[in-house]
């Protein structure tokens, strides 16, 4: 496998002999995953398509604007976070249909906790309310996920059935929890986690994040090269290393510029006692930063820890994993617990964004999450998948969704398109795998 940490072992490109074709030579020297390129191309196609359609048909290309792309990034967060967990579930040949309902029940529980219970104990607006709420929500998600995992691993019930049951049960629980009534508004600090007013880090904050990320990219490349030298493995040519660094840092700086190009609206400027014509950047939204942090943590988990290695091994050959002394049942339980915890985290973002908890929160999310993971290259046959792929997949799904809203497709058409795209993406993926085998 390549030693670039962002690439999971199974889909790492072979170090094929450099062909005569310059494109091929570039790809093999830089060891860039061609699937990643394919997904980026698909994304650009979708973005460009919606923009052009808007420009030509509606006379207003609203897609490729800082405002829309900023919103897109926020909308992607909760699905993206869950998709990273779904990768592990699907890699180990399971499925989790309950994540949308988990959002409902954890969101509702957190709503009750922070609005009805905690203020009575600590007083309204106490600083600890949002922290306790978040911890409780994530813990509840993990607990429910662990229970699912236990039924699957230790009681032998197929994950499809357990989580289909979970889909019904937890949605029902979400309703019962508050008699079907919506809870609103949530704690004001909690609300920031959804990226609503004030839930962003501004221009300076974004630059700090961006520069840290660039430093991270450079460190990864330098460290990777040092490792290869130490073990006398073949090295990437220097120009390839530099190109990779430039692409990585360029993408990061580009997104910082983009996020900073979207100013706060007038209403908020007035609240801040600023003149109407002041330009104050949004910068990265907090939920987006949470998603990025989750993505990095999950990537490290999958590519740098034993846990991740075992996830792949179980997916590749469960019997071999067991014979190698891996406790596959315990692993399954932990994977579902992790999926549940991530659903709890996604519920924080979703309910914070709405500034309320409703029993319908997260409805149909399971389908988007599964679609995101699968579009991102996670194989339903097990054993193969990447975290960055799933996040990109979530971005693709969300781009389709919000693009269609933007150009005025109604809900029926939206569903048809999303359904067709999912099937088509998996088919294309089959072709890709057959060709690169």
């Amino acid at each position: 496998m390549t030693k670039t940490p962002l690439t999971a072992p199974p889909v790492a490109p072979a170090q094929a002999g450099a062909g005569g074709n310059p494109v091929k030579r570039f790809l093999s020297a830089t060891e860039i995953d061609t699937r990643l390129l394919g997904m980026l191309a698909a994304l650009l196609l979708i973005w460009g398509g919606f923009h052009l359609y808007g420009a030509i048909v509606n006379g207003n290309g609203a897609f490729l604007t800082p405002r829309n792309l900023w919103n897109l990034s926020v909308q992607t967060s909760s699905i993206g976070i869950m998709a990273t967990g779904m990768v592990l579930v699907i890699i180990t040949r399971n499925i989790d249909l309950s994540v949308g309902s988990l959002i409902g029940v954890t969101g509702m529980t957190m709503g009750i906790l922070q609005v009805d219970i905690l203020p009575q104990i600590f007083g309204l607006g106490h600083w600890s309310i949002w922290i306790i709420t978040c911890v409780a929500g994530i813990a509840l998600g993990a607990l429910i996920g662990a229970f699912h995992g236990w039924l699957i691993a230790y009681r032998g019930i197929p994950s499809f059935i357990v989580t289909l049951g979970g889909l019904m049960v937890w949605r029902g629980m979400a309703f019962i929890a508050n008699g079907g009534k919506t809870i609103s508004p949530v704690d004001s600090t909690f609300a920031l986690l959804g990226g609503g007013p004030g839930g962003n880090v501004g221009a300076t904050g974004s630059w700090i994040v961006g520069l840290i990320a660039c430093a991270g990219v450079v460190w990864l490349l330098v460290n990777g090269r040092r490792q290869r030298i130490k073990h006398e493995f073949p090295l990437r040519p220097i120009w390839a290393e530099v190109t990779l660094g430039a692409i990585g840092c360029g993408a990061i700086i580009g997104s910082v510029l983009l996020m900073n190009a979207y100013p706060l609206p007038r209403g908020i400027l007035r609240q801040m006692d600023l003149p109407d014509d002041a330009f104050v950047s949004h910068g990265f939204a907090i939920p987006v930063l949470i998603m990025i942090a989750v993505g990095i943590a999950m990537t490290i988990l999958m590519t740098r820890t034993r846990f991740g290695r075992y996830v792949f091994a179980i997916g590749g050959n469960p019997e071999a994993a067991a014979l190698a002394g891996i406790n596959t049942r315990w692993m399954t339980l932990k994977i579902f617990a992790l999926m549940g915890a991530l659903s709890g985290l996604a519920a924080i973002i979703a309910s914070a964004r709405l500034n309320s908890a409703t029993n319908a929160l997260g409805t149909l999310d399971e389908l988007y999450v599964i679609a995101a993971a699968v579009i991102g290259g996670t194989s339903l046959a097990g054993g193969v998948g990447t975290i960055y792929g799933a996040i990109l997949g979530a971005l693709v799904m969300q781009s389709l969704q919000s693009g269609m809203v933007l150009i005025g497709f109604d809900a029926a058409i939206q569903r048809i398109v999303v359904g067709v795209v999912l099937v088509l993406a998996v088919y294309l993926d089959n072709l890709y795998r057959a060709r690169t085998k």
Partner: protein
Amino acid sequence: MTMNKGTPLVEMRDISISFGGIKAVDHVSIDLHPGEVVGLLGHNGAGKSTLIKCLSGAYQKDTGEIYVNGERAEINNPRDARNYNIETIYQTLALADNLDAASNLFLGRELVTAAGFVDDAQMEAETRKIMARLNPNFRKFNVPVSALSGGQRQSVAIARAVYFNAKILIMDEPTAALGPQETQMVAELIQELKRQGLGIFLIEHDIHAVMDLCDRAVVMKNGQRVGTVNVDEVTDDDILGMIIMGKKPAKAY
């Protein structure tokens, strides 16, 4: 060589295991001494793989006892077996197809850095070292093992068993997927390991290989042990007679 005295490396006593009424292994006892190669023979379905899986921790015996160096051993899972320095090359190879050679070699026993992260570079370096010894032509270190030939996969499985300083090695049809040249390499490896004092259970169909490599041969049929022979005291026809007809020659015990 053949008259083994002293404590056996492994002794499996009166092992039985059945699957849904089928007695896959039926009161079988075998033992193995240091530096000895014991062949396990019998038709497909005779129970050879099942018997050794009780030793490797893949299956849990219904009845019977296992002794390692004369002491009662509790082997309830593959990890237990590994702790007794028992390494196994399974008939199915038991490789995770989606992982590369190094990840398979170290599966369940990954090398980690000081910070606790898997040390892929170190594992690949170690894999390169042992492969240079076992299969010098092996080059495919950075691809999933699904992309390897049968022989290359086999050498990964063998490397995994040999790398961790096994004292007891179980080889279940290790040459089934190999060509003549690679088969010869495995034979040489077995002889080298034997010289180093390992005890080896070798499941093998090729009667000539058995005559060449094994000190003793245990023949199984329908889950039962037909008999055990010292290989240099019998002919290959004697052994074939045991396998095919369950006929026990005079020298067998």
